[in-house]
């Protein structure tokens, strides 16, 4: 892996040039109130590299909250055509845990039946990752992170003060930096490593992640599910903001003229009450506690068994978004540990 360096000023003018290039959308982190969100950059002035966490993860670009899958004319089943929005995009400043989450998302959409709607969007993207420069109280990424981020990143940035160290991870990344003032790296491995680890997490998962699937099975009947479930609003915030949640609903929308329609996929979530309601009205996960348990099992057992990687990347978004303050995996596991 080639390692280069660029001054922050040069990087900003590099990004500004990218923004002006209309072939590719340049997406970065911008301020939204006192929080941060990914958005199309109109000028590098809006770009924030120093942020704690974004409200929604970058999945919104690959599995948009509402996405058209098909178009059709009502009453004519031969009229179905598949459509996709496959803009070329570059995402700048994606934290490593969000990159790791895309590793899981990629698996989910490519394993077995390959979902081209998602995969095409991923193929058309360039991911410029970075190590966080700001502390976030709910983050525990360090205690779950593996090397998956490097399977998704095209470039990784490390904040060195006035410069970024630039790790060129993929061929795509190499092409992307073409034309910028990227020069030879002068920082030592030690310095880089220190910079990468500068921001500490206060929180950590109390159980070794390899053991979690087993741990959960053992605690299937633990009182945490009911205790926390009783406090749950079934508001879905925790799953909507989660970078590794990708459940969806599919429905059809018809224009007012009733002449044209689209089949759309929208975000859905297992914490919502009607998620498992069947045709006959039977709800297979009627109890709040059962839904609460299902979410944790999916992160801690279902996904790991399917994709050989823990299903949570430790971003802390769920913990932060939960009005009842019960959704964070750290809190859940600690409660289980404390109430054996």
């Amino acid at each position, binding site marked *: 892996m080639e390692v280069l360096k660029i001054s922050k000023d040069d990087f900003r003018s590099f990004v500004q040039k990218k923004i002006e290039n209309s072939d590719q959308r340049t997406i970065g982190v911008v301020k*939204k*109130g*006192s*929080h941060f*969100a990914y958005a199309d950059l109109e000028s590098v002035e809006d770009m924030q590299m120093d942020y704690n966490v974004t*409200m*929604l993860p970058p999945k919104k670009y690959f599995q948009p*909250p509402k996405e058209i899958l098909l178009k059709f004319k*009502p009453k004519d089943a031969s009229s179905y055509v598949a459509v996709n929005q496959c803009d070329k995009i570059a995402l700048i400043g994606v934290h490593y845990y969000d990159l790791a989450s895309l590793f899981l998302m990629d698996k989910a959409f490519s394993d077995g039946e390959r979902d081209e709607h998602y995969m095409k969007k991923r193929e058309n993207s360039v991911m410029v990752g970075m190590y966080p420069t700001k502390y976030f109280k709910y983050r525990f990424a360090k205690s779950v992170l593996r090397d998956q981020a490097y399977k998704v990143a095209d470039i990784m940035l490390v904040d060195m003060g006035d410069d970024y160290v630039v790790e060129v991870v993929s061929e795509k990344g190499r092409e992307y930096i073409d034309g910028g003032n990227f020069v030879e790296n002068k920082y030592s491995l030690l310095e880089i490593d220190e910079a990468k680890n500068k921001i500490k997490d206060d929180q950590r998962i109390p159980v070794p992640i390899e053991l979690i699937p087993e741990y959960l099975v053992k605690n299937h009947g633990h009182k945490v599910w009911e205790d926390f479930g*009783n*406090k*749950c*609003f*079934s*508001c*879905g*915030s925790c799953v*909507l*903001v989660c970078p590794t949640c990708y459940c969806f609903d599919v429905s059809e*929308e*018809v224009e*007012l*003229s*009733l002449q044209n329609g689209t089949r759309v996929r929208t*975000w859905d*979530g297992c914490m*919502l*009450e*009607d998620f498992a309601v069947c045709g006959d009205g039977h709800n297979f996960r009627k109890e*709040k506690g059962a839904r609460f348990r299902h979410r944790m099992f999916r992160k801690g057992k279902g996904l790991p068994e399917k994709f050989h990687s823990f299903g949570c990347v430790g971003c802390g978004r769920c913990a932060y*978004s939960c*009005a*009842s303050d019960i959704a964070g995996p750290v809190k859940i596991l600690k409660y289980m540990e404390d109430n054996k």
Partner: protein
Amino acid sequence: MGAKPKVAFFDFASCEGCQLQIANLEEEVIGLAELVDIVEFREILTGKAPEYDIAFIEGAITRDVDEKKIKDIRSRSKVLVALGQCAVSGGIPRLKNNNPSLDNVKKMVYGDKYNMPHLDTYPTKAVNEVVKVDLYLPGCPINNKEFLRFVKEISLGIMPKLPNYPVCVECKLKENECLFDLGQICLGPLARAGCDAICPSNGVPCEACRGTVDNPNKNAMHEILEKYNYTVEEIKRKINIFGVDPEVKK
């Protein structure tokens, strides 16, 4: 539903903002007029019809004369839709029921002449307390996109469903800062979505103007409120702005 469904609009005790939301569809009203046959809509057109495929009822029922009228409309309508929160739950007009004495209410507004017969009123009722309601289109005012969806789905032979998840879902999709983080009490976790989280998106806590989800977790809300030093009374009063008693569904 035959060729073009015959659609009518009626209003009872209300501000007519929901019908206005429909007029505000602009060009889409033209599309709507293509899709359905608008046979009565007193606010924008002159005309009457003997029966209706879909009757949209705006407003709450507060008088005997209105009760007679709505029963008559019901008997001539195939599908009857409660349009807007006044019709769905009694809405804002239901606030008057909070006062234990109706006479006091009347006196407060009409003074010593309160007993003149034409000023008569009874405790506000939602439409479904008087006649059978087939569909509910909640909100104060309604979301006119949801109204269009209802009309389209009924035309296609689909029984429209309301979202049964809380406003937080839409609030998250809008990437709003949660108002709880800003120290405000928001009814979003209990309230029925479908408004696109319009109040939180404008910096104002949700007031559950579309009622609550089927199974709102009131206990969880009480716990949070205790944490914020609010009383149960206060939250009850809040929910009750739009005639929604959390003990009562719809």
